[in-house]
C-alpha cells in the first residue's frame, strides 16, 4: 500500500468509527423522554443531569446515573442519607456551617442538622433578603417591616432602631430556628456593604437549601398524599356519608390533578392527557380514585396520552417491578419490558407540538433528537476534539521546523477532521435545541474557535500558507482548554425568552460573536509576528506576509463586528424600542470597533507600520477579551445579561499583565533596533 493510500485508509477508518458507528449505536437505543427543568430529555441524560446537580458528577459510586434514579424513585432517599452525596465547594458556606473546609462532598445527615441549627447563618440570610427588598426601588412604601416570601411565606423582618429583628416567625424548616424578636443583624442602616458582603453567601445557601429540599422530597414508593386520601375515604365511609357527597368531598379536599402532580418528583415520563405541558411520575400509576357506583376506591383510569392498552400494560409491569424491587429483587427482565412498553407508548407523540405562544410553538423532542442528546451526554466530545487540534498543532510545528511535507499532510488532515467533529458538535446542539448555538457562555466558547478555524481554512485557501492553520488550532486549543477547566454549564438547556426570536437577532449574535473568533485568530498571528520579530530582530519576508494576513483578518473582523453591532441596534430598535442605549456590552463593542478603526485608519494612512499592526491586533484582542469576558464577569451589569457569571478575575488580570509586558518588551526591542540602525 502506498503512503497516500495508507493515510486515506486510516482516515476513512477513523471517520467510520466516529461518524457512522455512533449513530448506529444510537439507532439501536430506545430513548424514553422524561420531563426535567423545562425540557423533555432522554431518560439517561435526565438522570445524568439530575445527579450532576447534586454531586457534580455524572455517576455516583460507580453506579450509572439512571440506575441510581430508579433506585431513588422506589426506595426514597434514606439509603443515601449517610453517604457523601452533596457537592459543596463554597468555602464561606462550609465555614459558616462548621463543616470540614477540606472536603467537598457531604452527606444529607451532615448537612441537614448543620443548616437547620445555624442560627447565625440564617440570621444573615434573612437580613440580606430584607435589605435587598428594602433597597429595592419598587418598595415604594418605605415600610420598615417586610415579608420575605422568597425565603418562607409569613417570615417578616423589621428594623428596630438600626438593628434588624425577626418580626414574625414561621413554622417551616429551616426558618423555624429563628424566633420572633431575635436580632438578626446589628447596625445595618448602611445596607450596601452588607449586601455586597453577603450576596454570594446567600445565593450559595439558597442553592444548597433547594437541593436539600428536593432530596428530602424523595419519599420512595410511599405516597403520603395517597395515604391521606385513603384515610379520608375510610373515615367518610365509616360516617355513612352518601356516595355522591364522598365524591364531592374527596375531590374538593384532594383534587386529582394535584395528587397526580405530587405523586413523585422523579421519572416524570407519563404525559398528561389534559395538560400537554405536564408529565407525571411513574408513581402516579398507583393513584386510586373513588368510584361512585362501586362505592369503593378503584385504580385510576388512563390519565395519560397513551392508548388504554399501553397504559394498562405499563401499569402492570411497573407495579410488578416495583413490588419485586421492594422485596429486594431487581428484576431486569421486567425492567426492560417496562422500558420497551414506555418507549413504544411514546412513539406517536414524539416531535409533536405541545405549547403555543404568540408566533412560536414548543414541540416534544423527536426520536432522533432524543438519541442524539443521549450520545451528547455519553461521550466526552470536547476532550476528543481538543486532542485532534493538539495533535494537528504539534504536527504543524514539526512540519514547519523540519520542513516535512508528510507531517504537514497529516496535520492538515487532522485539523480537517477536528473541524468536522467540531462542526458536528455544534450542529448536534443546534439540532437538539432547535436554535443557533450562541446563547450562553459555553456555547459561544465553542462557537468562537470554530469560526477561527473556519476563517483559517478559508485564508489557507487564498494564501496557501499553513501558519494560519497553526494559529487557528492554537486558538481552538486555548479556548477549549479554558472551557474544560472552568466547568461552564455545558448542559442542553432552554433559551431565555428574550433570545428566542427573530432571524435578525440570530444574524446579529452570529456575526458579533463570530468576529471575536476572527479577532482572536488575528491576535494569535500578532503574537507570532512580535515573537518572531523579537527573535530575528528585524522584519523578515515571512513577517511581511504575516502582516498582510493580519490586515486581512482585521478587515474581516471589523466588517463583521461593525455590521453585527449595527444589526444588533436595528434588532433592539425593532424589539425593545431603542436603537442604542450605551449598555456596557454595546459600549464595549463600540470601544473595540473604535480601536480597530483607529488601527486600520492609522495603518492605511501610514501612521503605523507592520509592527504597529501586529501590536494593534494584540491590543484589539485585549479589548475583545474584555468585551466578551470582562463585561459579563467583571462589570456584571447591563441588559446583555445572558451569560453573566463570576470567577477567574485574577487569572484575567494576570493575562492582561503578561500581554502588556510582552508588548512592552517587543516595543523596547524595536526602539533598540532603530537606535542601533541610526547609530550604525
Amino acid at each position, binding site marked *: 500500500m502506498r503512503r497516500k493510500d495508507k493515510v486515506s485508509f486510516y482516515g476513512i477508518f477513523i471517520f467510520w468509527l466516529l461518524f457512522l458507528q455512533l449513530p448506529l449505536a444510537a439507532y439501536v437505543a430506545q430513548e424514553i423522554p422524561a*420531563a*426535567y*427543568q*423545562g*425540557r*423533555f430529555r432522554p431518560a439517561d441524560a435526565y438522570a445524568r443531569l439530575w445527579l450532576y446537580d447534586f454531586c457534580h458528577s455524572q455517576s455516583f459510586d460507580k453506579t450509572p446515573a439512571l440506575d441510581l434514579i430508579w433506585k431513588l424513585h422506589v426506595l426514597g432517599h434514606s439509603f443515601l442519607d449517610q453517604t457523601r452525596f452533596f457537592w459543596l465547594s463554597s468555602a464561606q458556606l462550609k465555614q459558616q456551617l462548621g463543616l470540614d473546609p477540606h472536603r467537598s462532598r457531604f452527606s444529607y445527615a451532615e448537612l441537614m442538622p448543620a443548616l437547620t441549627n445555624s442560627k447565625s447563618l440564617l440570621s444573615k440570610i434573612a437580613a440580606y433578603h430584607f435589605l435587598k427588598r428594602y*433597597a429595592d*426601588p419598587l*418598595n415604594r*412604601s418605605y*415600610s*420598615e*417591616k417586610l415579608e420575605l416570601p422568597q425565603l418562607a411565606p409569613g417570615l*417578616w423582618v*423589621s428594623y*428596630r432602631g438600626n438593628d434588624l429583628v425577626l*418580626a*414574625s416567625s414561621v413554622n417551616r424548616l429551616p426558618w423555624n430556628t429563628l424566633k*420572633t424578636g431575635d436580632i438578626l443583624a446589628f447596625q445595618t442602616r448602611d445596607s450596601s456593604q452588607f449586601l455586597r458582603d453577603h450576596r454570594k453567601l446567600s445565593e450559595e445557601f439558597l442553592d444548597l437549601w433547594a437541593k436539600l429540599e428536593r432530596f428530602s422530597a424523595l419519599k420512595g414508593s410511599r405516597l403520603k398524599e395517597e395515604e391521606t386520601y385513603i384515610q379520608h375515604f375510610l373515615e367518610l365511609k365509616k360516617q355513612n356519608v352518601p356516595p355522591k357527597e364522598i365524591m364531592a368531598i374527596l375531590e374538593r379536599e384532594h383534587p386529582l390533578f394535584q395528587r397526580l402532580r405530587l405523586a413523585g418528583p422523579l421519572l416524570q415520563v407519563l404525559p398528561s392527557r389534559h395538560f400537554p*405541558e*405536564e408529565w407525571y411520575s411513574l408513581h402516579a400509576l398507583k393513584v386510586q380514585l373513588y368510584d361512585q357506583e362501586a362505592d369503593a376506591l378503584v385504580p385510576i383510569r388512563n390519565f395519560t396520552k397513551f392508548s388504554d392498552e399501553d397504559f394498562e400494560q405499563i401499569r402492570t409491569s411497573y407495579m410488578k417491578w416495583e413490588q419485586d424491587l421492594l422485596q429486594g429483587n431487581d428484576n431486569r427482565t421486567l425492567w426492560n419490558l417496562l422500558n420497551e412498553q414506555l418507549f413504544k407508548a411514546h412513539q406517536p407523540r414524539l416531535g409533536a407540538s*405541545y*405549547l403555543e*405562544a*404568540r*408566533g412560536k410553538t*414548543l414541540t416534544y423532542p423527536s426520536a432522533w433528537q432524543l438519541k442524539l442528546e443521549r450520545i451528547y451526554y455519553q461521550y466526552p466530545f470536547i476532550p476528543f476534539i481538543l486532542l485532534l487540534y493538539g495533535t494537528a498543532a504539534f504536527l504543524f510545528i514539526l512540519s514547519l521546523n523540519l520542513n516535512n511535507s508528510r507531517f504537514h499532510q497529516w496535520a492538515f488532515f487532522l485539523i480537517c477532521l477536528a473541524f468536522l467533529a467540531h462542526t458536528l458538535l455544534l450542529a448536534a446542539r443546534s439540532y437538539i435545541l432547535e436554535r443557533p448555538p450562541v446563547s450562553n457562555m459555553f456555547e459561544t466558547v465553542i462557537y468562537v474557535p470554530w469560526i477561527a478555524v473556519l476563517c483559517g481554512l478559508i485564508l489557507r485557501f487564498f494564501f496557501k500558507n499553513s501558519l494560519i492553520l497553526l494559529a487557528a488550532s492554537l486558538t481552538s486549543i486555548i479556548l477549549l482548554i479554558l472551557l474544560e477547566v472552568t466547568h461552564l454549564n455545558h448542559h442542553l438547556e*432552554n433559551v431565555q*425568552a*428574550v433570545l*428566542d*426570536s427573530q432571524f435578525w*437577532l440570530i444574524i446579529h449574535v452570529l456575526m458579533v460573536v463570530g468576529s471575536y473568533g476572527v479577532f482572536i485568530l488575528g491576535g494569535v498571528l500578532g503574537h507570532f509576528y512580535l515573537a518572531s520579530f523579537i527573535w530575528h530582530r528585524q522584519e523578515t519576508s515571512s513577517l511581511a506576509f504575516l502582516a498582510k494576513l493580519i490586515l486581512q483578518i482585521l*478587515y474581516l473582523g*471589523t*466588517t463583521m463586528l*461593525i*455590521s453585527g453591532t*449595527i*444589526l444588533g441596534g*436595528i434588532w433592539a*430598535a425593532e*424589539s425593545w*424600542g*431603542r*436603537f442604542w442605549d*450605551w*449598555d*456596557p456590552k454595546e*459600549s464595549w463593542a*463600540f*470601544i473595540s470597533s*473604535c480601536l480597530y478603526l483607529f488601527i486600520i*485608519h492609522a495603518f*492605511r*494612512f501610514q*501612521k503605523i507600520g507592520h509592527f504597529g499592526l501586529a501590536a494593534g491586533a494584540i491590543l484589539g484582542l485585549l479589548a475583545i477579551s474584555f468585551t466578551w469576558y470582562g*463585561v459579563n464577569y467583571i462589570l*456584571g*451589569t447591563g441588559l446583555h445579561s445572558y451569560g453573566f457569571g463570576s470567577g477567574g478575575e485574577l487569572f484575567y488580570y494576570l493575562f492582561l499583565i503578561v500581554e502588556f509586558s510582552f508588548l512592552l518588551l517587543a516595543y523596547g526591542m524595536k526602539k533598540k533596533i532603530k537606535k542601533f540602525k541610526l547609530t550604525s
Partner: protein
Amino acid sequence: MKSLKTLYHFLGSIYFALILIATAAFLVILGTLIEAQTDSHLLAAQWTYSHPFFNLLLGLFFINILVSALRRWPFKVKHIPFLITHLGLLMILSGTILKNFFGLQGSMDLIEGSASQSVYIPHSFALHIEKQEGEQLTAARFPLSMQRTLIDLSPFSSLQLKVLQTFPHSKEHLETWIKGNYAFIFGSLPIPVQEWKPGSAIQTHQQPDLLSWQLAAVRTPHIEEALKHFYIQNTEVIAASEVISLADALQNQNPLFHLQLDLSFSPIEGLQNPRLKVDWMKKETIEIPLAGSHALQPILTTPSYSYTPAVSIQLNGKPTLLILQDDQEDNYLCALSSQGQMHLIPFRQDSLQNLLVYNQGFEGYGVQAVFPFGLEKTNTEDKKQQQLIASLKQLLKEDPPLAPPLELLSQACQKTGSDLAETFVRFLYAWHQSHLFLLSPDAHLSPSLSLVLDHLEWNDRWQSEFKACQWISLLFMPLAEAIENGESALSFLKNHRWPFLDQLNAPDPSPQLLTALAQQVFALSSSLPSIDHVDLSPSEKGHLLSAFFKAYGLEYQTLASSEPIEESKTVWETPLTTKHQLAIPFTKLENNKPLLVLEAQEGSSKQRFTLAYDPSGTGLKWPLWGLYTFRFQPRQIDIPYRIRLREARQINYAHSNQPYSYESDIVIIDKEGKEEEATLSMNHVHETWDGYRFYLAGMSPARENGIKRIHVVVNHDPAKYLLTYPGALLVALGAILLFWMKPYAKKR
C-alpha cells in the same frame, strides 16, 4: 485665510479623526467603569454619553467625516467605497440627532383592565397641577428643572409657585392616626400621645362630643404589653354576681375561680386569638374569646354533663379607643366594647386598610377604622333568641311534621293562641338558664309561658310518653344529686345496676350521655309500671316536658346557632397625610426620590409645602386650599392613542419557572374612537400606521395568580427608515468595498 484653510484641512484630517476616535473610546470606557462601580446607568450617562461634551464630540465627528469627504473633491471612481461608508456614517449620526429632537421615547405602566394615553419620560421632572372651579376641572403639567425658580403657570394665572429648595433623595411616610405628638380623629380634639413603658398607666381622655368613648394614644415598642395593660385597666369581671376589677381578679387567688388573660400580639397577624381563661372551683375551665366573630361566647373546655358552664361570667368594659404606634411608625387601633370585647385594626406603612378620597382629592384623603360593636350594651342572648325564633318561624311556615314533644307543645299553643316558635325558644331558654339537667319542677316561669304549660294535656295519645317522662324525672333526680357530690354518672348507674350500661354510646361526662340515658328510659317505659300523679302545676308540667325534650336531644345549646350576631358598628376616620424625611441619596441615581419644597401664593394666601417624586406618576395628588392638587412626577406626553390592557400572561417552559413567552393583549383606540386589538409579546412589537411603536418591556408579578402590571415602551422615530437604517446598510456595504475592492487596495 491661510489659517482658515489650515483649519479646514485639520478638520478633515486623519489626525483629527484618530483623536476623535480615541477620545470617544476613552469616554465610553470611563462610562462603563462608572456604571460598574455605582450600578447606575443614569449616573454614567450623566457624566459621559448624555454630557454636552459627548454631543459636541458627535458633532465634530460629523464635521470631520463631511470635510474629509469634501477634501477629496472632485471625486473619482476610487473614492466610491470611501464615500459610501462615510455617507452611511453621516446618515446614522443625523438620524440619531433628528430622533433626539423630534422623536419620542417613553414608558407606560398599565395594570390589567386599565388604560392610558400618556407616556412618561423616565427620570424627568414635572409638576402635575389640577384646579377645580365649580364643576370645571383644569389639569396641566409643567416641566421642571431642579433649580430654584419661579415656575410659569400659564393656565393658572392667579397662582404663583416658587421652588424654594430641592433635595436629591427623601423618604415618604404615610401618616394616619398619629401625626407627631398628637393623635387625630375626625370629630375630636387632638389627643396627646403618651410615650408608654411597661408598668406605667395608660392615660385616657374623655371628650364631650364622643358620647362616652374614652380615647388614648400611646407610642411604644411594647405593643403586646400595652394591649394587655390597656385591657386589664379598663375591664371588670362579673362572676357569680360579684363585680371585681380584672386587675384584682387576676391577682387575687380567689378560692372560687382563677382567671388568666391570654393575649398575644404579632405585628403582622395582629391579635392572636385573645381569650380569658376561667378556672371555676377547679372543676370547670371556661374560655371566653375576647375578639373575633365568636367573641364573648364562653366555651367549656372541660367535659361536663351540660352544654353550658355552671357559672355565668360576664365582662364589663369602659368603651375605649386606643391608638398605638410602634417604633416602625406603624399604627394600630384597638377598641374595647362595653362588654369587654376587643378589636384591633393594623394600619401599616405598606398596607392601609382603606383609602377615602374627599372630593377627588381636592379635600384630601382619609382612612377609616370600622369596629364591629357600638356603645350600647346589647344583650347578645336576647338577639340570639330572636334569631332562633325567626328561623324557626320560617321553618314552621311550611307545616313540617313535628317531633313528638314539639307536637305536644304545639297543641297547647293552639289552645292558648300563642306562637309555637316563640314559646318553644322561651321554654328552652328558661331551662338553659336554670343550669339543671331538667327544668326544675318549682321554677319561676313567665306568665305567658306558664299559661301555655298549663294547657299541656298528656291525654290518652301521650300516655306512654308521659310515663317515660315521669321515669326519666325519677331517675335524673338522684343522678343529679350524685353528680353534684362528685360521683360520675357511669359509676352511679353501675352502683344501681343499670342494665344497659354497654349500650350507652357516649363519653362520660358529656351531655350526650344524659340524652342517651333518657332514650333508654323511653325504650323501657312500656314495661315499667305507671306512676300515680295528682294535678300538675305548670312548672311541674314544664319539668316533664323538659325530660321529653331531653330524650329527643332538643336543648337550647344544640339549637342556638353559633352564627355571629349582626351588631352595630362604630366608624372612626382620620386624615391621611405624608411626612417627608431627607435621606442620604443612593449612588444609583435611578433609586432616588427627590424632594421639592414649594411656596404657593394666590392673592393673600401663601403656603409652603413639600412634594416627593412619584416615579411613575400614578400616585396620589396632594391638595392645597381645596382648590388645587399637585403631584411631582415625570414629564408626560399625550400620544394620539389610548391603550387598554386586557390581559397579560407569562407562559413558562414545561415543569419549570423559566419563562418561555411574555404576552399581553391590548386594545388600541385612536382619536376617532376606532378600536384595534393587538397582542404584544417579547420581540413582537405593534406599530401603528403613523409610526408609533409599542413594546412589551416588563411584566410583574411573576407568580401565576395576581393582577399583572406591564411596562410598555413607546417609541416614535421619524428618521428611522429615512436615515438610520439606510445609513447602516451603506456603512456595511461601504466597509466591504473599502477593504476588498481591488483598485483601492492596489494603491498600497
